[in-house]
Structures are given as C-alpha cells and as structure tokens.
C-alpha cells in the first residue's frame, strides 16, 4: 500500500502570502457580491431606512417592461458583439499568420484601439456619427445614400454602439487567435500536405480543430466582456439622460446603474444585478458543458 504524503505548508507561511490579496478580495469584492444578494430582498433606497420585502423586487423585474427591454437589448448586443469580434479577429489572425510584409506593423495598428480610453474614442465617434454634420453621413450622401440617424434613432443606436465596441476590441481577439495559430504544430500541416490536402482542407481539418481551445477561450472572454460594457453606452447615449432613444441602448448593467444612482431604487437594482449574474453563470456553464462536443484538446 502506498502512503500518499501530502505535506501542507505551515499556516504562518500560507497566511503571509495569501492574506494581502485574499483579505482585500473578501472585503471589497466577495462581501459586496454576497451583500448584493441580501440587498436584493430589501427596498433600500440609499438612505437610512431599510425594510425586507422578500421576492417583491424579483417579481417586479420579471414583469417590468423596462427590465424586459434591457434584457433583449443586452442579448442582441452580446450576440452581435461577440460574433463580430471573433469572426473579424479570426479572419485577421489568419491573414497575419501568413508571411506578410509589415506584419508587426499591421498587428500593432489593429491592436491599438484596445489600449485606448473608451471615453476618448466614444467622443470621437460621436463626432463622426453626428447625424447632421458628421463625416460619415456626409460621405453616405456624397455617394448617393440616405444619411442614417446613428445615435439619434432607436433603430440604429444599438448598431452604432456595437460598431464602436467591435472596432475597439476585435484586435484583442485577433492577437489571441494569432497566438493560437502560431502554436499549432507545423508537422500537422506537413502531414496533411503529404496526404494531398489543399489550403481549404488544411484549414478545415488542421487549423480549425487545433484552434478550438483558443476559440473557446475567446468566446468565453468575449461573452463576459460584452455583458460588462458600460463606458461607451454612458458616453454615446447620454449617460445621465437615461440611455439611448427610447431606451434602445440600455443594457442590463446600464439599467442597474440607472436604477441605483438615478432612481433611488437600490434594492430593486440589486435584484436586477443578481438576475444578470445568474444569466451570465448559466451561459458560461452551458458553454463549458458544450465544449466537449466541439473543442479538441492536444492529441499530440
């Protein structure tokens, strides 16, 4: 019989290393998360009084048209943002994976928006998309199209926010996928060539399968990031004036912010937040479960 000796390090040592980060984490992150759950069962309005109201906030949220609208806006926003970020990221990663002249230049330029301040670029886009005088509309008119309302209409405002978000972030996923591409073992390609595969088949049977772990990671990251987008919505669609035209750009996180800091409804806002949290958890768990079906891990 083999005796497994698991030696634990001394308590003192563990505490010295663990405490700085863990203590702060507990106080400023973990505790607020738990408290959020608790607050969601109250009618707290930011003042000195508080009362327990049970599930009332949740019930209100579920049949509140404001919450439902925010839910659909969020869903639309997340789906389109993730889709375009990943697709564009993949396309450009594939391009840059070839022997391209000036590869690091292009990679640098495309990645640049990722590091810039969201506020600054949102302001620049507001200028560009100005419905009456902006260069984009001027350009459209000069080639014979009708100008679009961009941020001024509920039909196009969400699309505009998506454009800004994708513009900013797809470089990040491009870099991730590029790295993924570069770790694919070249012998796999050689083997495929020997079998007579052309570039399309190489892509389908070597590149794509080998890329799936990184692709999976990108999708998870993109999903999580998309749910958290706030800055652009705040600046592009008039922050304090309650979101885009007819609430068309109010995502769930933005609604949470508005309800808490604009409507004095902190208890209700926490309930919304917990519902959002559950949604994110469910989606993430679903993705993790499904990954077995399509993600191939290293065989070699």
């Amino acid at each position: 019989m083999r005796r497994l000796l698991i030696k634990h390090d001394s308590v003192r040592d563990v505490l010295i290393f663990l405490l700085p980060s863990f203590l702060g984490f507990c106080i400023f992150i973990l505790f607020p998360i738990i408290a959020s759950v608790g607050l969601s069962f109250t009618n707290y309005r930011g003042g000195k009084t508080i009362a327990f109201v049970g599930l009332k906030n949740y019930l209100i949220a579920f049949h509140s048209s404001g919450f439902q609208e925010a839910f659909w806006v969020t869903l639309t926003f997340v789906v389109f943002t993730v889709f375009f970020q990943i697709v564009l990221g993949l396309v450009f990663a594939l391009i840059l994976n070839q022997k391209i002249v000036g590869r690091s230049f292009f990679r640098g330029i495309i990645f640049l928006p990722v590091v810039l301040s969201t506020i600054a670029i949102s302001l620049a886009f507001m200028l560009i998309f100005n419905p009456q005088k902006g260069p984009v509309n001027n350009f459209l008119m000069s080639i014979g199209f009708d100008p679009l309302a961009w941020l001024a209409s509920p039909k196009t405002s969400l699309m505009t926010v998506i454009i800004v978000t994708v513009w900013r972030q797809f470089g990040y996923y491009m870099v991730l996928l590029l790295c993924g591409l570069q770790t694919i073992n070249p012998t796999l390609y050689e083997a495929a060539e020997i079998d007579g595969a052309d570039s399309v088949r190489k892509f389908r049977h070597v590149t794509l399968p080998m890329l799936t772990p990184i692709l999976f990671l990108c999708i998870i990251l993109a999903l999580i990031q998309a749910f958290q987008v706030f800055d652009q919505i705040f600046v592009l669609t008039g922050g304090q004036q309650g979101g885009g035209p007819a609430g068309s750009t109010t995502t769930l996180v933005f609604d949470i912010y508005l309800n808490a800091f604009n409507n004095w409804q902190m208890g209700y806002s926490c309930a919304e937040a917990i519902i959002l949290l559950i949604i994110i958890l469910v989606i993430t768990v679903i993705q993790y479960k499904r990954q077995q079906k399509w993600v191939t891990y290293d065989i070699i």
Partner: protein
Amino acid sequence: MRRKKINPWVILGYICLVVATLVVLFPLAVMVSSSFKDEMAIFDYPIKFIPENPILDNYRQLGEHFPRYIMNSFKVTIIIVIAQFITATTGGYAFAKLRWKGRDTVFLIYIGALMIPLQVYIIPQFILIRKIGLYDSHLALVLVSTFTALGTFLFKQFFMTIPDSLIESAKLDGATQIQIFTRIILPLSKPVIATQAILSFRWFWNDFFSPLIYITSEHLKTLPLGLADFASEYYTYYGPQMAASVLSIIPVMVLFFVAQKYIVQGIFTSGIKG
C-alpha cells in the same frame, strides 16, 4: 527562371489589412485633426486632415483642469499597479506553490468572481466605502481596484511553470518561503511582472466606472472622468473635447508602442495557459 505564382488570397489579405488600418486610423485621425481646428472647420466636408488654419486654443482651454486630471490618473494608476504587484504575486504564489487545505476551492471562487461585472456588486461596495468614510477619495479607488483576481490568476499560472525541484532544493538548503519567494521566484518572473504591470496600467488608466461612482471633487478626478464631465458641460464645443481626448490617449499610446512586445506576450501567456 521560375515565375512565382501570385496567390490571389494573399492579395485579398493585403487589401483587408489596408482597409482595417484605415478603419482603425480614421477616427483617431479625425480626433487629432479636429483638436486643432475651430468649430466651423471641424465639420467641413471633405475632411481636411491637415487643418488649414490650425489653432491651439482648444488645448489652451484644457489648461485649467486637465493637468490636474493627468496627475491624478498617474498617481492613482501607479499606486494601484504597485499594490497589485504585491497582492497578485503573493496571492499567485500561495495558490501555485503552497499547499493548503481548500486551496483549489478558494481559487475557484477567485475565478468565479472574475466573471461578475462590477455593476452587480457596486451598490454594496459603495455602501461599504461610504461607511468607512472614504467616499470621494483616491484611497477608495485604490482599495476597490487592487484586489481583482486577474493579476493573481496570471501569476499563479506562471508560477506553476517554475519547476518544483527548484523550490525543493532551496528548502533543503534551509531557505524560508519568504526567501524562496524573493530570491528565486521573483527574479525569474521579471518579464511576467513587466507584462502584468503594463496591462494593469492600461486597464486602470482607462478605468471610468469606479471613478464615476467614487469621485466627485474636481481636484480628485482622474482623466476619463474629467474627460466625460468636460464633454457634458453645456457650453463645450467639439474642438476642446477632441483635444482632451487626444491628451487621454497619448500616454497609453506611447506605452503601447514602447512595450508592444510585452503586451502581446502577456495576452499570449494568459490566453494559452487559460
């Protein structure tokens, strides 16, 4: 003589790259050139990227507050980066190399918390900050920003790649954990530390939401908040807004061009190991 066949896909690839470059640079070019134009000229079409009559007035208008905002951003960001360095390296080490009960469960909690948007728990966090009397202070920003699990996660991943044998032999030589940490682990981690510092700097320099909630005093505002507030004052015109935006992006752009290699490397490491 062999003539090399030009692959049409490659041409397409180049075209895409050029288009992408233009799309990326266009808003930035508009931003920079508008910052030197007066209101009338900003919306001239076709756009003259080099302004006909450049003016410095837009930048002059920023002189009252923006130097302050920039100083605040530097101060707060650097403090956070340093604090994060301390907590993330120690925490990462605790999860990677030390053995203790419940280690993996706790780590799972860390990962879980990463996925939760700040807006979900901002209200209790806000109430907490208020209770300890730190509302409207830089300390509040530092406290709420330092402990995010991302740094810890990255260092844990990296430390796990350091061979245990190195540590074991040091222990045999009688070294304490602290000595092992400072004399062996940290020196080995220099590139990762650099990368993490740069990524952190970028993130917190651009952070908007926390300052939005926790800062109101004019003299405490960081750059993103100052910029957003500046843009919403009702007599502000586009020119100064663009000038302020340019100021916001310069430090990070400089950092980026200098440290591009590290940033990309960092994303690579965090991605692959994730």
